[in-house]
């Protein structure tokens, strides 16, 4: 034994240990490597900063908004942007800036929750399908195919229309309609790592199926899943706005960007700002998420280095 453990190795080990004590950040973990690559991508960082800013806006909406989102002032209808109303007012004389700010509290959480639910249900099913294979895989994926045979948007409209308005129903509609696509993503990701030798060696040390799936396959497959998560949030926010725009989602006076667009479309000629700002917000949010997702994909996929 002693022969294998040479003094030189001991010296190196000591040096390493010392440098480690000095700065634990020197260690390279897979996630830290990814973060390093992500930091180099300026667009992704821009997306991340915008996203963080939006989240902060949502959290501190009460302090940031100059007025309540439903405070009406009929003597100030459809005013163009001015110093008093930075984004102008709408047809009820409500301050659009305040409504846009409060809108982050609706769109962002709904977008995230929809995707989390879709991934929780669809992802679990997809993971089980990929792991078990054979008949289980076939049954689960054929059911998903049936779901997917209806275009997600139409399905969301159908569910939202039958359940009625409201945030909860909207979340349900979007989660269910996007679930099959998410299950496919997770299934594909698990399938690509499933054949690896370390899965075999996990079986060889007697790890249970659950352990193999949760500790060996999922962490190794997390890259594509995480990436598609961010893109999915962007899509979900768009879907929320679309459904609200056609009157199936969030109802007035709750300031949802989609429904604000919808309300503004009649005033397009007289007061384009009513429509402009909520539209811009949707665009910026989706753009930020997509930029961040793009960067994340590049950072997590070692082949794209």
């Amino acid at each position, binding site marked *: 034994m002693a022969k294998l453990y040479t003094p030189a190795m001991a010296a190196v*080990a000591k040096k390493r240990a010392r440098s480690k004590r000095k700065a634990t950040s020197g260690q390279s973990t897979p996630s830290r490597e990814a973060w390093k690559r992500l930091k180099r991508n300026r667009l992704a960082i821009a997306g991340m900063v915008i996203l963080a800013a939006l989240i902060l806006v949502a959290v501190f909406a009460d302090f940031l908004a100059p007025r309540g989102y439903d405070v009406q002032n009929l003597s100030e209808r459809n005013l163009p942007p001015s110093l008093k109303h930075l984004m102008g007012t709408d047809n009820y004389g409500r301050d659009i800036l305040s409504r846009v700010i409060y809108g982050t509290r609706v769109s962002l959480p709904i977008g995230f929750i929809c995707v989390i639910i879709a991934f929780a249900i669809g992802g679990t099913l997809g993971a089980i399908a990929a792991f078990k294979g054979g008949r289980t895989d076939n049954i689960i994926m054929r059911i998903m195919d049936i779901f997917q045979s209806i275009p997600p948007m139409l399905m969301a409209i159908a569910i939202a229309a039958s359940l009625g308005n409201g945030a909860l129903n909207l979340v349900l509609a979007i989660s269910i309609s996007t679930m099959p696509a998410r299950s496919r993503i997770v299934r594909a990701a698990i399938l690509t790592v499933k054949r690896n030798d370390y899965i075999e060696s996990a079986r060889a040390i007697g790890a249970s199926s659950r352990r193999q799936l949760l500790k060996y396959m999922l962490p190794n497959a997390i890259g594509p899943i995480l990436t598609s998560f961010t893109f999915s949030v962007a899509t979900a926010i768009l879907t929320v706005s679309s459904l609200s725009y056609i009157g199936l989602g969030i109802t007035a006076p709750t300031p949802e960007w989609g429904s604000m667009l919808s309300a503004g479309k009649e005033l397009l000629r007289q007061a384009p700002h009513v429509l402009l700002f909520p539209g811009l917000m949707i665009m910026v949010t989706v753009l930020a998420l997509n930029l961040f997702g793009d960067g994340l994909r590049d950072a997590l996929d070692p082949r794209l280095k």
Partner: protein
Amino acid sequence: MSEKVLEVKNLIVHYETQDGVAEAVNDVSFSISAGETLGLVGETGAGKTTIALTIMGLLPKPAGCVISGEVLIDGRNITETSRNRAKQRKNDRMMRRLRGNDVSMIFQDPMSALNPVMRVGDQISEVIRLHSSASRAVATQKAMEMMELVGIPGVRFKDYPHEFSGGMKQRIVIAMALACNPRVLIADEPTTALDVTIQAQVLELMNDLKRQFNTSLLMITHDLGVVAEMCDKCAVIYAGQMVEHGTVEHIFNNAQHPYTQALFSALPSLDKDVDRLKSISGLMSDPMDLPPYCTFYERCDARCHRCMELDPPLTESEPGHFVKCVHFMKDNGAPSPKEGAAAAEASL
């Protein structure tokens, strides 16, 4: 020494694929006593890895199936399957407890045998925690000891696999395999993926640890040098069958089966200067379509008319030395392989 830790009896394993049935392992029997090393030698596709996977209970489902035979680990049969679901689940659970604890395996390619997103220390301590009620701290302590034992400083406990070289990764795999002090260790070509200088170190390490823990070792390799260095007994596998089986001395000093002899003549020799090495002409018989007679017939230098007539059984040619060849069958009237070869040459 006589206590048999691992026993394989008349094992037949088939892969049932859409193109047909591949007869991967055909009637293989062997046993290993405590502390003993058996070398399984054979060319690619001979069924060595299939034998190992069967012992681990890791045959790829649903294609691979054990047609008949038994694998006994400490007298417990692990190939039993049951149609009864509850019973089968119980079998599976027992098998899972066995894996890593009583039998463990070292894989061919250390580069891909470790989970890239888990710290190596955690991977070693996981084996310990899966098979004992050890607390996290105790398991960590034990894992560090194992790392030191295989010559890797314990401070590297928190490093990830990509921070190690191939040889070091293989040591970690060895540490993982030995963490629970298994009765049987299966090494599936443990040095094939390593470069030559590291090979010797790893083999020496395995030998040391094996002696220290009194582990039985099943060494799968196609490197006869490794067999000479490591093994007590040796079995030569050809087309899923055992063609020669004996102690290392039997095989190396008195190889009797024409295939084994051909393997040795394909090795460069230190004391003779040879321009061309002898190769074995032809390919191994297709496991989907094995002949009913001797499987080595097509490539054999010593074949004769008798070889096509029957599939010779494994015959004891001298105490403890078994050969599966017509020429060694009792009272068969066929010439010995050397004479056969001479006759074949004369006829040319």
